[in-house]
């Protein structure tokens, strides 16, 4: 990448850039060109063996256990885990060499259109994995505590490692979902939009673009991610607010929000927190407001083999609650939070970047589309 996508990303030394790009390319190769070939072993060996064994059922855990014994898949687990850790470390090394320059730029952008509200006293939830998805230090940068580095690393990692997936601004998700939402709800004109667990704002900014007259706010528990996100949004001249709050209890008034959503947040929490988030969404929404939560499709959308693919994330990529979250009955949970069944929906948002010609397999989305489930109050 010769041009940086925004002013809060700085060009690294060429060798560091090569290493960073390489780990992303290897991850893509392992996911898109190696793993899909293992389904044949499931079809021809594992499925018949499980079907013939009266003591075992054809569920995703049984499939995953059997697939772990398949040599090529075992090798994939090892290489994929190493590549994931190395990819984040490669980005962090670059950020560590640039922290002073990044801090200077963030300070210069401090009066920019984006607003930052930090609450250092906000407790960091203990259900968030310390090294979530093998990013050393995790979202709160435990052990190092730099005010920006965790956010800068996360931004580089998703922009570089997944540049074919979500664009250099990692905004394909936001644009694609906003487009699908306005298609499904053409009368919907939110005045206040809230994203829960916004991290650095990759998905948040497209919603300001889609609804330019709305107040757009993102909350997160991570100070470094919010601080970086605000500087990044100012660099991109986008007037959004980043506020350090816990999605379970944001502190915003009842019925003060028209659109509340999350993207790949809930699988990183826990059952109690997820239920609290759904209840908080119901409390926050005005009548007619919309809640949605986007993540990988829940298990009830997938065949057992595709469910079993999550075994790697759960046991080797520090995503233990995926097992719980993807098994939740979302509609039952939305009902428990107070939403009406006849106002619930599940949607798939086609990836706009894939429609423009990118290979769906490289984007690592399911056939080039994003899943979301929600309800209208």
């Amino acid at each position, binding site marked *: 990448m010769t041009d940086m996508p925004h002013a809060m990303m700085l060009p690294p030394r060429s060798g560091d850039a090569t290493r960073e790009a390489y*780990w992303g390319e290897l991850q893509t190769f392992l996911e898109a060109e190696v793993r899909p070939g293992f389904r044949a072993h499931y079809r021809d060996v594992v499925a018949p063996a499980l079907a013939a064994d009266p003591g075992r059922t054809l569920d995703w855990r049984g499939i995953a256990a059997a697939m772990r014994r398949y040599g090529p898949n*075992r090798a994939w*687990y*090892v290489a994929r885990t190493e590549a994931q850790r190395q990819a984040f470390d*490669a980005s962090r090394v670059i950020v560590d060499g640039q922290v002073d320059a990044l801090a200077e730029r963030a300070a210069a952008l401090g009066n920019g259109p984006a607003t930052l509200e930090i609450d250092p006293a906000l407790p960091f939830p203990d259900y968030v994995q310390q090294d979530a998805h093998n990013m050393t230090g995790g979202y709160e940068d435990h052990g190092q505590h730099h005010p920006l580095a965790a956010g800068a690393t996360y931004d580089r990692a998703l922009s570089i490692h997944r540049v074919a997936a979500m664009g250099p601004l990692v905004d394909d998700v936001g644009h694609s979902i906003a487009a699908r939402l306005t298609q499904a709800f053409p009368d919907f004109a939110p005045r206040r939009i809230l994203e829960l667990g916004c991290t650095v704002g990759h998905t948040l900014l497209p919603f300001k673009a889609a609804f330019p007259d709305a107040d757009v706010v993102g909350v997160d528990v991570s100070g470094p991610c919010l601080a970086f996100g605000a500087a990044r949004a100012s660099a991109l001249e986008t007037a959004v607010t980043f506020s350090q709050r816990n999605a379970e209890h944001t502190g915003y008034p009842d019925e003060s929000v028209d659109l509340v959503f999350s993207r790949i947040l809930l699988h990183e929490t826990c059952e109690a927190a997820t239920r609290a988030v759904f209840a908080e969404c119901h409390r926050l929404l005005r009548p007619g407001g919309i809640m949605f939560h986007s993540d990988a499709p829940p298990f009830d959308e997938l065949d057992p083999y595709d469910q079993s693919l999550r075994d790697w994330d759960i046991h080797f990529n520090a995503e233990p609650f995926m097992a719980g979250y993807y098994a939740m009955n979302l509609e039952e949970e939305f009902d428990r939070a107070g939403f009406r069944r006849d106002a619930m929906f599940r949607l798939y948002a086609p990836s706009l970047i894939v429609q423009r010609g990118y290979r769906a397999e490289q984007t690592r989305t399911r056939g080039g589309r994003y899943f979301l489930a929600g309800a209208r109050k």
Partner: protein
Amino acid sequence: MPQDEPIGTTVADRSLQITTALSAEVVVLRERLDIVERLAAAHGLFGPGDVDAYVPEPGVAESLAAARRAFIERIFGTMRVQAPRR
């Protein structure tokens, strides 16, 4: 049996971790050399073709071979088995 061991714990697993990590360093080195050759060509010094066509003079060839032999000794020397003590 090896496939019953938890993933990541066997010697083979650890070897694969190491070789995977090492693969990045090979790529980084090769690309840096590629860049050096491109810059040298851009500055009118020499190009990749000069490197491809290079034939070392006898003294240099011996020196390169000695370096290769030393590398083999350092990296693979431990493959020798000790003669049994009597």
